[in-house]
């Protein structure tokens, strides 16, 4: 659905290039987790794919169309939930009346259903500026899903959400996801989202260090207490003894520990990628 085709980008001409010949594909039917350290370029990547920033060279396309052209057919089919945003001094109902027409597949029924998931049903007459930060985020995400755009891009969506809302957020994703949609979640809060991802992309220093399906990760890497004779790629000390990421034995499948996968990939990207290529 999205293609980053050898893009290069820096915020100013003399500055360091954040991306240099960067390429990546994102396909429909997947929930992507975009992970990277602070300053790795996650938000920049998101702005590049939504047409808010222009690469100095290369292009980002959605269904073959350069997103930079910001054609109505593109903009009506993608939705960005930024990390921070302001909502106008309107009631939710008025906001929806004004903004929904830009999205051909918007559904009021879905909007109410998603508000319900966040326990915010019956909020249509609420004044947006009177809502707390977390409530604003929930209302905006409910709207984002209700637009039924095929691409939904969220930057740190669980920031500012309270504890019960994080579970509601997962329910929103698993309820709203369909095979023709692509959801990309950029986050540091890996624990919030690890069970809902199809695919994980880890970026650092303008490179894709890992871009793999969760199914592939599970079949190649085991995350578990270490045993004698293991050759771990990454070791983590815990109160219960050392845990590690080790090459998975035939038939061995463990739950993916995203935090450990992230740390292992940042520390030893070659060893991680070797695991994937050696068995192909």
């Amino acid at each position: 659905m999205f293609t980053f085709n050898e893009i290069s980008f820096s915020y100013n001409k003399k500055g360091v290039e954040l991306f240099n010949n960067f390429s990546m594909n994102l396909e429909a039917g997947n929930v992507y987790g975009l992970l990277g350290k602070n300053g790795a370029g996650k938000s920049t990547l998101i702005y590049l794919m939504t047409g808010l920033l222009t690469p100095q060279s290369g292009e980002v396309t959605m269904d073959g169309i350069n997103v930079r052209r910001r054609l109505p057919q593109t903009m009506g089919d993608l939705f960005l939930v930024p990390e921070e945003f302001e909502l106008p001094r309107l009631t939710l109902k008025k906001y929806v009346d004004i903004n929904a027409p830009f999205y051909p597949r918007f559904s009021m029924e879905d909007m109410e259903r998603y508000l319900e998931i966040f326990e915010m049903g019956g909020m249509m007459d609420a004044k947006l500026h009177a809502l707390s930060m977390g409530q604003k985020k929930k209302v905006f995400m409910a709207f984002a899903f209700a637009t039924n755009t095929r691409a939904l891009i969220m930057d740190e969506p669980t920031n500012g959400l309270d504890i019960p809302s994080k579970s509601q957020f997962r329910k929103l994703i698993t309820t709203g996801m369909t095979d023709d949609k692509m959801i990309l979640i950029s986050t540091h809060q890996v624990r919030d989202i690890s069970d809902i991802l199809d695919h994980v992309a880890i970026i650092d220093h303008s490179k894709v260090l890992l871009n793999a399906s969760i199914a592939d990760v599970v079949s190649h890497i085991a995350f578990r207490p270490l045993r004698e004779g293991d050759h771990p790629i990454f070791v983590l000390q815990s109160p219960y003894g050392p845990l590690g990421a080790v090459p998975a034995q035939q038939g061995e499948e463990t739950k993916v520990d995203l935090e450990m996968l992230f740390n292992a990939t940042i520390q030893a990207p070659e060893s991680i990628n070797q695991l994937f290529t050696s068995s192909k």
Partner: protein
Amino acid sequence: MNFKDNKAIYLQIADRIGDQILSGALVPEGKVPSVRELAAEIEVNANTVARTYDHLQHSGVIYTKRGLGYFVSSEAKEKIVASRREQLMQGEMDYFLGQLKAVGITPAELQDLYSNYLNK
């Protein structure tokens, strides 16, 4: 749903469905929730649940009716009990017996313990 740390999630979901069949919450020839329904309920990726259903179908616990979804097979309980028995005998039982030996519990004591447990 809270997952244990070192067992693949799709297998943990399979265990959960197995539990529901053994407890009678899901009955033979009864309908199993759709992949999307269950994914939303337990807040897990739909492809993971699809994998669980593949696994359960492969082991004969559920089957699909074209266009209608998944159903509990009539022999599901027997299949689950047999596979859990096998798992227990291969893995946990060995560990458990080792622990009994380590703390010196005799076969007679074990028999009493188990009889009392069953009479509870």
